[in-house]
């Protein structure tokens, strides 16, 4: 259920990026999430949609790359993708391997529509001010009650 807070943090990051690019509109944000990060991609997509609805981020898409953990063999240094928690090194068969990644929760990219009129000076610089920024419990509770409304609406 903490996907709501994570979605909120993603929007904070997007808003921050937009502040540096006056007039730009965010279209899609790409994130990378490791299977061991404890974040469910479907729940995150749903939370993201609920949080952006009827805000200036409405329609902002999220592209989630869900990545498998990787390990490194201590004997032969081979790095490999871990499937089903398999510890065995695929190259030399050693069991002495260490996990090197898997809990990623990071930004990848942001797709933007830049104002064509930026050069002519017609675009009004808009500093994004998100109504959902902040990681306080109150914001998250408000967002969660919105999700409940949405869920009721779906039924």
């Amino acid at each position, binding site marked *: 259920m903490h996907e709501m807070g994570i979605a909120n943090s993603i929007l904070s990051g997007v808003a921050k*990026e937009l502040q540096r690019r006056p007039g730009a509109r965010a279209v899609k944000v790409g994130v990378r999430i490791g299977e061991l990060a404890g974040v469910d991609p479907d729940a995150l997509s749903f939370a993201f949609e609920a949080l952006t609805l009827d805000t200036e981020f409405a329609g902002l898409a999220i592209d989630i790359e869900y990545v498998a953990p990787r390990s490194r063999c201590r004997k032969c240094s081979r790095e490999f993708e871990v499937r089903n928690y398999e510890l065995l090194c695929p190259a030399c068969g050693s069991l002495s391997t260490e996990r090197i990644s898997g809990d990623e929760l990071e930004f990848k990219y942001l797709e933007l529509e830049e104002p064509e009129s930026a050069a002519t000076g017609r675009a009004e610089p808009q500093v994004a001010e998100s109504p959902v920024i902040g990681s306080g419990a109150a914001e998250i509770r408000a967002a969660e009650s919105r999700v409940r409304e949405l869920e009721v609406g779906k039924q």
Partner: protein
Amino acid sequence: MNRVPMEGKVLNENARVAAELRERFCERRVLVVNLISSPGSGKTTLLEKTLEALPRAGRVAVLTGDLQTENDANRLKRYGFPVKQIVTGGTCHLDARMIEKHIADWDLSQLDMLIVENVGNLVCPSSYDLGEAAKIVLLSVTEGEDKPLKYPSIFFKSELMVLTKTDLLPYVPFDADAAIANARRVHPEMEVVKVSCLGGNGLGEWMNWLERRRQVFLSTLAQPVG
């Protein structure tokens, strides 16, 4: 359309506060451990036994997190150590800001160890760095031995798994060896301590682990950085 690269962690703000906290804890030489488990696995009871076993002059403090009530803090205050309750008001995990706020009026130089009891939840707390030196996961023998595979994130990130309520092993179908094997599939280096807070078995080993971990922590501080 223009695609620009974005870098950094999604939980950047939490990561920033956690890094500040970690720096403070290192400066003051306070070992911080973060206890995480499902509700009812025995975090508070293990803490009670821990505080009971510590010398009264021990320089230890406790932060305990719950969605509601001061019950756990009241239980733990009886042992004479500084204890504070963090009431999250519905949030399912502790974050670095809550820790920062609740230690604000504690003099860290008077502490050797801070034990944080997270909200009972095996999922969400694993995503939030609190500036701790080590995460510790508890698994009770009345749960399923496949929990490490169902909730890999927290087992991946914890240094130690404390198997609790082991006095119940004769009465439940729990396979402790399978649980440990599962934990080590997710995290090959996982250390394990088996504890019965009721009978007292394993509590000495648990206390030794904490002291050993503190020595390791202090030895890393002594090393020159870089």
